[in-house]
């Protein structure tokens, strides 16, 4: 029965700190007065607002629609009125604001009409469209639109489906609690994924530090009419990373620059599976998720939180304490500092980790790299972090890419083991950002070059066309004029023809001038006309006067 497991390279064993937040049951966080719902909560294009300021919205109503293939919709988490659609602070390391829809809740929590979907009777593309409109995105951290991942594609069959219950990052327990209490629903979601992907082998990987979750998932899996193998995997950070989970369970490695679907494997987080089951069997869009609030708080625990709830309300609920030194969204290894606590909970928020000096002593000053290669031993992506650091620091991004910078999963193992306390991952993030920015600039330059070249081509063409047109016209006129005198029996030279042309044009211009009488004097009284005449007479007089001295001056020399 027990499956042969494989060991991925590297990894670390940071203190787990999981027991703090698993001792209390899941609480539903109360409805806040104001929900701030960002439109960019997923990877891909941000959603496009479909409501207006002042409009009343119901719980679960779509307030912003997916824009493009890699995108997903955003919904109102409760009923109320749209108070604003503007830039608001969001949980992002930069502290920059982003477009959000603010809803003032009315406390009635009134649902929009929603119904379960009969997924077995639906066509796959249609079902995926529905899932996109229900706002599903991966809840493991990357928030990639699930509808895209549920497309096996024409050539990629997806025989293996892995449900990731690894949750390897310290402090976070939301997936653990979800598996303990909602195992049946998670597996209902798995059934839908199996239907869409046509998978034949289904594995659920759970780290061995979650025995309750393992038991709960195993007993739920035993009730199913298809085979789901719940596998206990050894706890080692980052064993919950998708690529690491694949290697542990199957022994296969995802090749550099490829996707797991290229080797016939798709991975979903347990939270995503749960959200999928809620969407299909209840018609509920993704408007809430489990969030672990832990660290330096009085009552660390998990909350069922509506998307858009301000983070400070959750910290208050868990009991805030003095001596807070900062808040992370996510765990201590990969989490990002939250710039201010008014920012809302988003689809990616799995944990709110409150820091204190005792729990997270400030990092000592970074020292120079001594090239001890402890980072290389710890790196689960089998990279050479010390080399990547050297290239990133020096701005040698080409070499960094040669050393497979983009295979880095930013797990933080290298920084964790670094005896010089160098924030290595920050350097990799910096290098990745620079490379992306350069690629973007390159694309913009290519576009500008193309447009400039086309403009030059167009101007050339227009010039040529104009010249041709003029030549044709002149030719025609000449032929016409030549025909008239020929009829009269007189031979006309080319120069004469040209002269005649000019004379004709002059006559036309003259006729036009005399024809156009000023139209604004049509409806005037005789007195007014008389006045105008007087003024005109005065003007001609002045004009003559003005001309006279000039003429006299001209005569002088």
């Amino acid at each position, binding site marked *: 029965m027990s499956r042969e497991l494989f060991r991925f390279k590297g990894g670390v064993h940071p203190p787990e700190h999981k027991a703090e937040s698993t001792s209390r049951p899941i609480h539903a966080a109360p409805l806040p007065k104001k929900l701030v719902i960002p439109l960019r909560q997923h990877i891909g294009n941000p959603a496009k607002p479909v409501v207006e300021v002042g409009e009343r919205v119901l719980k679960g109503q779509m307030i912003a629609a997916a824009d493009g293939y890699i995108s997903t919709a955003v919904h109102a988490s409760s009923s109320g009125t749209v108070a604003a659609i503007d830039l608001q602070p969001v949980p*992002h390391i930069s502290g920059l604001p982003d477009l959000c829809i603010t809803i003032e809740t009315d406390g009635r929590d009134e649902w929009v009409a929603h119904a379960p979907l009969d997924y077995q009777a639906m066509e796959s593309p249609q079902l995926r469209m529905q899932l996109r409109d229900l706002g599903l995105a991966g809840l493991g951290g990357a928030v990639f639109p699930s509808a895209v991942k549920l497309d096996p594609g024409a050539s990629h069959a997806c025989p293996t489906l892995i449900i990731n219950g690894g949750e390897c990052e310290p402090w976070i327990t939301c997936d653990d609690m979800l598996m303990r209490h909602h195992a049946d629903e998670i597996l209902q979601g798995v059934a839908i994924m199996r239907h869409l992907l046509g998978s034949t082998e289904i594995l659920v990987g759970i780290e061995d530090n979650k025995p309750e979750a393992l038991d709960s998932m195993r007993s739920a899996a035993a009730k199913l009419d298809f085979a789901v193998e719940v596998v206990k995997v050894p706890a080692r950070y980052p064993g919950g990373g998708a690529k690491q989970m694949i290697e542990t369970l199957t022994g296969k490695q995802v090749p550099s620059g490829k996707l797991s679907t290229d080797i016939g494997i798709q991975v979903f987080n347990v939270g995503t599976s749960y959200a999928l089951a809620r969407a299909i069997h209840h018609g509920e869009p993704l408007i809430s998720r489990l969030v672990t609030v832990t660290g330096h708080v009085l009552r660390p625990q998990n909350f069922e939180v509506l998307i858009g709830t301000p983070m400070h309300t959750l910290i208050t609920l868990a009991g805030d304490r003095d001596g807070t030194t900062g808040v992370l969204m996510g765990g201590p290894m990969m989490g990002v500092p939250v710039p201010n606590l008014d920012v809302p909970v988003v689809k990616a928020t799995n944990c709110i980790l409150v820091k204190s000096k005792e729990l997270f002593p*400030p*990092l000592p000053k970074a020292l120079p790299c001594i090239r001890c290669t402890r980072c290389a031993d710890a790196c689960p992506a089998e990279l050479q972090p010390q080399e990547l650091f050297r290239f990133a620091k020096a701005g040698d991004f080409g070499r960094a890419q040669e050393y497979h910078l983009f295979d880095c999963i930013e797990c933080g193992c290298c920084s964790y083991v670094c005896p010089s306390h160098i924030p290595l991952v920050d350097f990799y993030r*910096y290098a990745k950002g620079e490379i992306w920015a350069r690629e973007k600039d390159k694309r913009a*330059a*290519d576009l500008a070059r193309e*447009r400039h070249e086309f*403009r030059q081509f167009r101007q050339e063409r227009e010039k040529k066309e104009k010249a041709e047109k003029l030549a044709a016209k002149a030719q025609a006129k000449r032929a016409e004029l030549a025909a008239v005198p020929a009829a009269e029996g007189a031979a006309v030279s080319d120069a004469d023809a040209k002269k005649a042309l000019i004379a004709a044009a002059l006559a036309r211009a003259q006729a036009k001038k005399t024809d156009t009488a000023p139209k604004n004097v049509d409806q005037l009284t005789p007195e007014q006309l008389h006045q105008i005449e007087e003024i005109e007479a005065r003007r001609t007089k002045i004009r003559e006067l003005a001309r006279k001295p000039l003429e006299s001056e001209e005569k002088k020399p």
Partner: protein
Amino acid sequence: MLAAIGVMAILAVAIGLVLGWSAIRFKVEGNPLAEKIDAILPQTQCGQCGFPGCRPYAEAIAKGEADINQCPPGGEEGVKKLAELLGVEPKPLDETHGTPKPKSVAFIDENTCIGCTLCIQACPVDAISGAAKQMHTIITAECTGCELCLPPCPVDCISMVPIAEDLPHWKWKHPVVMMKQIAETEDA
């Protein structure tokens, strides 16, 4: 003796034919060096280098008629890349051709615009849409920020707006800055 000379002569003719044929068959169109230089230039087509566009400047550099430090939008980094490509020492930007400015796009004040089309004719990348006596507007995604539309405008309704840093444009700063900050706060 004669046979040897004969063999050598035949060989010479055969090789000559092959070389002659390949010179025609594999002839490289255009100047490959100018292509490479053009790929480094930022393609703003602003003409600050003194040439009517990036391509003519690239050709001038390739011929040795222009220096590598005449492109302010490319900045010091552009000069460095050109120096690397051409195997010469990098030099500071020539300030007579202008100084690097933050990346901007043109913006037309639509209330002031009289629809004269002069800016449309000046734009090197066709990034202005409009027609005679119709309001003009900039296609922001295609504007290179060359400022060539500013001088022809008779009502001065075009201004350059620096691209503000927002979430999609944000990128990680060099971490050394942050590390220094940590060190400073500790020292304090």
